[in-house]
């Protein structure tokens, strides 16, 4: 029977170990300063957020379009605020949400190609403003395909969703880059009290792009490189890119350059050519990603040359040593705060009261956000402003506390 005893003792030791480690983690929780209201954040990918809300696993989520519109139109939840309504009021209203980023050595090596990519983006933005209906349809088929999408029991027409979504989006190449404070001060050893947008902006590319848009004589590089561009295929924000690729003829007719897919255009093409005056000057490969941070890491690893991603992950990583620069904004707006249909709130202020109420009942409101995204930064700054403490949801049986700086 000796062996059986040893096994039992091992099992017992495991249990004791669990209890001790659990107590250790619990210490973190009890250290928490009581008194302030508490809200919980949970990191999730954008695609799964409607499911989480619909199954009551979260009370709310804050994410980009078209996930917001899908949730609203699928009647999964109601949108109570956009970034413009969230304090500090005004900060996010017209600031860049998605930007075009490029690796510095790419800019150095192929300045003209970099400028053309920026010019294509600006032209795409122009095209969206010229024909918004067409842009919505293009975006709809890029993000969702042609089939109706199913959302919590109802079928939605992708074009209706995009029509709803585009009201939330302001495509512009002139939006100022926001400085980030909440997330950058979370970084260990990075005692930055906020980022300074001018530090990672490279305005030369956009300036040259404007010249090209105005008909400046192109300089053709000797070789035809392949440019790898990262983007989030589940988001509407890169719409200028979608429009450029799906409707290259309009752009070519206007400006004499375009991004042309090799074959007939359907679905979302993975590659296309940068054509100027009937000449291919670069091959472009599109690389889809899950979150902006991951794409920025790809840039740092020389796996990509340029990307359409959120301003926040881009600024975060550049401030931490990623050798890349922001070129221009692509759009402003495009984030929405969704709450459960039965939530007793209609705007940001009533949302905050609800959070305080639930915090007193020791059932903190749970909000899902994409990790290290602009939405995380907005929500963290907002709760810092409201003096509400953020804890992270989903830690062992207990939760680890994060003090808001």
């Amino acid at each position, binding site marked *: 029977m000796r062996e059986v005893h040893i096994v039992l003792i091992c099992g017992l030791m495991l249990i004791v170990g669990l209890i001790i480690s659990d107590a250790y983690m619990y210490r*973190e929780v009890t250290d928490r300063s009581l008194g302030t209201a508490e809200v919980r954040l949970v990191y999730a990918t954008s695609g799964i957020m409607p499911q989480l809300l619909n199954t009551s696993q979260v009370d709310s989520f804050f994410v980009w379009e078209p996930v917001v519109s899908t949730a609203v139109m699928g009647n999964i939840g109601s949108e109570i605020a956009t970034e413009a309504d969230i304090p500090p009021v005004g900060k996010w209203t017209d600031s860049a949400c998605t930007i075009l980023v490029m690796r510095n050595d790419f800019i150095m090596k192929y300045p003209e190609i970099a400028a053309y990519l920026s010019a294509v983006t600006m032209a795409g933005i122009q095209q969206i403003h010229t024909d918004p209906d067409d842009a919505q349809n293009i975006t709809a088929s890029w993000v969702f395909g042609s089939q109706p999408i199913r959302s919590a029991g109802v079928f939605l027409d992708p074009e209706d969703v995009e029509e709803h979504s585009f009201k939330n989006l302001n495509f512009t190449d002139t939006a100022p880059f926001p400085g980030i404070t909440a997330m950058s001060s979370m970084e260990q050893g990075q005692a930055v009290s906020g980022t300074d947008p001018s530090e990672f902006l490279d305005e030369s590319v956009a300036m040259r792009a404007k010249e090209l848009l105005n008909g400046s004589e192109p300089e053709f590089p000797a070789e035809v490189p392949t440019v790898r561009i990262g983007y989030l295929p589940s988001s509407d924000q890169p719409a200028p890119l979608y429009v450029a690729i799906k409707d290259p003829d309009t752009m070519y007719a206007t400006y004499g350059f375009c991004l042309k897919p090799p074959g007939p255009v359907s679905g979302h093409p993975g590659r296309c050519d940068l054509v100027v005056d009937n000449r291919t000057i670069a091959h472009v490969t599109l690389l889809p990603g899950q979150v902006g941070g991951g794409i920025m890491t790809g840039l740092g690893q020389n796996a990509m040359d340029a990307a359409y991603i959120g301003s926040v992950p881009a600024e975060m990583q550049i401030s931490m040593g990623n050798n890349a620069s922001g070129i221009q904004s692509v759009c402003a707006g495009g984030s929405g705060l969704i709450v459960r249909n039965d939530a007793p709130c209609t705007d940001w202020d009533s949302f905050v009261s609800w959070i305080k109420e639930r915090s007193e009942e020791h059932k903190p409101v749970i909000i899902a956000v994409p990790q290290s995204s602009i939405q995380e930064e907005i929500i963290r700054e907002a709760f810092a402003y409201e003096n509400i403490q953020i804890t992270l949801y*989903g830690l062992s049986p207990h939760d680890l506390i994060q003090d808001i700086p």
Partner: protein
Amino acid sequence: MTRLHTVTKGLVLPVIIIIAWELLSLSIHNSYILPGWELILPVLLHPAESLFGGASLFENSIISLQRVLFGFMFAGAFAIILGLICGWSEPVNEYVNPLVQILRPVPPIAWMPLAIAWFKIGFGSLIFIIFIGAFFPVLISTIEGVRTLRERWLEVAETFDATTWEKFRTVVIPGALPSIWTGLRLAFGVAWMCLVAAEMLPGTSAGLGYLIMYAYNLGQIQVIVAGMIVIGIIGIASDFLFRLGQSRMFGWQGKE
């Protein structure tokens, strides 16, 4: 002395890799591709410092270990009980075995969407994924252990008028233990590997897998490497403990 020698031999390749790594990192000079040890070591040497405003490396490891142990113990307990029953009773096994064979090849992480729906984001779904990963190795080696018991041992018990339960307690369980133990050892390895995948599920806010994902999104490759090293060290340490237990408890194996 010979022991020392085997340890030294085992260290040769890692040391070569560490040196080559450092040399390469000096020549590449891009911490996104190959962070040097001057970046990795500080992370490893300050395990108690908070990373990215969240848990420290040490806390992340403890949390991961805790999750693995939790899922592992659940899986172990269920799998051993079911395995003993299936190994003992052929009819039960005929019912259970086809299902086991169908479910076994499914990678644990494929359960992720369902796990989130059933067990909610966070602790529940993580434990479930680890459970799935650890369950089958234990189950299969328990069944195997009972099946390959020496008929003679059961006959001996019978000649002493053992009841069915006494046979189970005094022969089946101790006789199958070495095989069960091997199953547990394999399962712990699998559970530990599933964890990294499972902690990349939404709804985690700490743990080594989470830390690696988070560090990836922030481009902090040196933290990823540090996390990998810790995962490896915990893996090798647990395997060592299992082997130690094996030689201590089941020295008779293969010599009976």
